[in-house]
């Protein structure tokens, strides 16, 4: 087969990605170039950027830690492991916007179970208006995101764990190394590429979060959970300033990818080849 004919196999995919994603993204991002100066001095954008960093800075480490714990658990041998792995995936497969409505009900100040459980346990006497105060609204947003996206980290790290050879563990075990030392000296170093991969994906998605705050808090109260994507959305759809929206998008894209890829490279460590 001629080589040009072989490349034709890629044509439908290339056309779809090019026309629907690449061209609109390039045009849209280029269109924002003129407004970046204004955006960088914009106090509302600065506030949104700070909220987004707080959200990602707290939720992603929690997801990485919990995801690692779940992956280690699901890598053990026990009966019903296949089912447990599927159950662990469920939150990730559910629609974020729809489950955000569920979380609004859970965090309802009068009828929410987020008030009932601590009250039953005697941890607090007065109900908390979770979504009504800045700090607790951010905490609620983070809790819902940790629930929703920890399975993604679990999945990637579980796949990574399956590449860790068992005989290495057994050899160290014979040398008298306990589970904690085996984890630190064998599992963790071999898991590093998977950890870096999960971290990059999670950071990019967390810094670009939209549906969860849009539904759960609407960016409130008092703009405390207003993220960069909500700011860009409101520019276009509320204030009818698409140029500002495009400029925010450009600055956000540059910031998100720079931060995520830098931290990912740090997590991966220096290349040994």
């Amino acid at each position, binding site marked *: *087969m001629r*080589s040009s004919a*072989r490349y034709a196999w890629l044509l439908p995919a290339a056309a779809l990605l090019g026309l629907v994603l690449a061209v609109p993204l390039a045009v849209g991002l280029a269109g924002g170039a003129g407004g970046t100066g204004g955006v960088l001095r914009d106090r509302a954008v600065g506030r949104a950027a700070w909220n987004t960093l707080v959200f990602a800075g707290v939720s992603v480490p929690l997801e990485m830690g919990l995801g690692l714990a779940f992956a280690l*658990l699901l890598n053990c041998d026990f009966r019903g492991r296949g089912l447990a792995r599927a159950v662990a995936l469920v939150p990730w497969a559910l629609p974020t*916007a729809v489950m955000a409505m569920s979380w609004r009900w859970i965090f309802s100040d009068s009828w929410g179970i987020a008030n009932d459980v601590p009250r039953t346990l005697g941890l607090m006497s007065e109900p908390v208006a979770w979504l009504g105060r800045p700090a607790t609204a951010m905490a609620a947003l983070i809790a819902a995101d940790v629930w929703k996206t920890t399975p993604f980290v679990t999945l990637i790290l579980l796949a990574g764990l399956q590449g860790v050879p068992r005989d290495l563990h057994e050899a160290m075990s014979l040398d008298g190394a306990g589970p904690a030392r085996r984890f630190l000296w064998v599992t963790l170093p071999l898991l590093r590429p998977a950890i870096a991969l999960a971290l990059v994906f999670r950071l990019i998605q967390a*810094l670009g979060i939209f549906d969860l705050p849009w539904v759960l808090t609407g960016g409130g109260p008092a703009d405390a959970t207003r993220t960069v994507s909500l700011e860009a959305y409101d520019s276009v759809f509320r204030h009818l300033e698409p140029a500002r929206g495009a400029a925010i998008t450009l600055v956000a894209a540059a910031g998100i990818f720079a931060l995520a890829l830098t931290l990912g490279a740090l997590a991966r460590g220096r290349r040994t080849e």
Partner: protein
Amino acid sequence: MKRLVPFAVLALAAFSLGPFLWSVVTSLKPAAELFRVPPTWIPRSMSLDNYRDVFAQRPFARYMLNSLFVAAVSTLVTLAAAAPAAYALARLRLRGAALAEKAILAFALFPPAVLLVPLFVAAREAGALNSRLGVAVVHAALNLPFAVWSLASFFRAFPAELEDAARVDGFSRAGVLLRVVLPVSAPALAATAILVFIFSWNEFVIALTFLTRDELRTVPVGVAMLSGVTVYEIPWGQISAAVVLTTLPVVAAVLAFQRGIVRGLSAGAVKG
């Protein structure tokens, strides 16, 4: 350590299924019990009124049909474009295949914040707003990287001898893909199709911004917009019923096809 595993698995299951189960419980409560303080953990009197109301008082059936249409069309388009590309990347020894695969995968990285404005502006220019087909095509493009990734890893694992035998029998490359590789990889194709369908069924940002007329809305947008006149009139019973109706098929699919789905996703994850 070993003795703790069952308890840890139970905690994991409670964490993963808790919010969904709480929606199920809430959806079965009649209005009087819904707003009891403290809330009852098991409904004292069960009723399906919320399910009846969400269909009778809201255009929920319409939302469901819209979502089914968008997800089905986008899944077909995704697979039709992804299967030949994945096969070529896995098997045809193209120069630059690794680079092309990385370029395709790079599109999976874009978060909603980056896609939101440019795609909306482009769709407005192209006259694709308020078109379910337009949303389906955008979903197809968004899901393509994952589908290529997952199918390519399956095709790589496919025994080359089978393909060579078919080639000797006079099949063209396209014939090999259509008659030999695809039928044998039906489980892989199904797992990919189910996941791509779920992604489209769940998608919010594009559906929210592209479809502004209520009769065109998909389920996630319709559910997120279910509201009463004031904050205190939010119809929580109906919302919970809608949440259950939207998520139950997804939970069922994940549990029913657990093996294929976990393997399909991990195959992609290992590679990346």
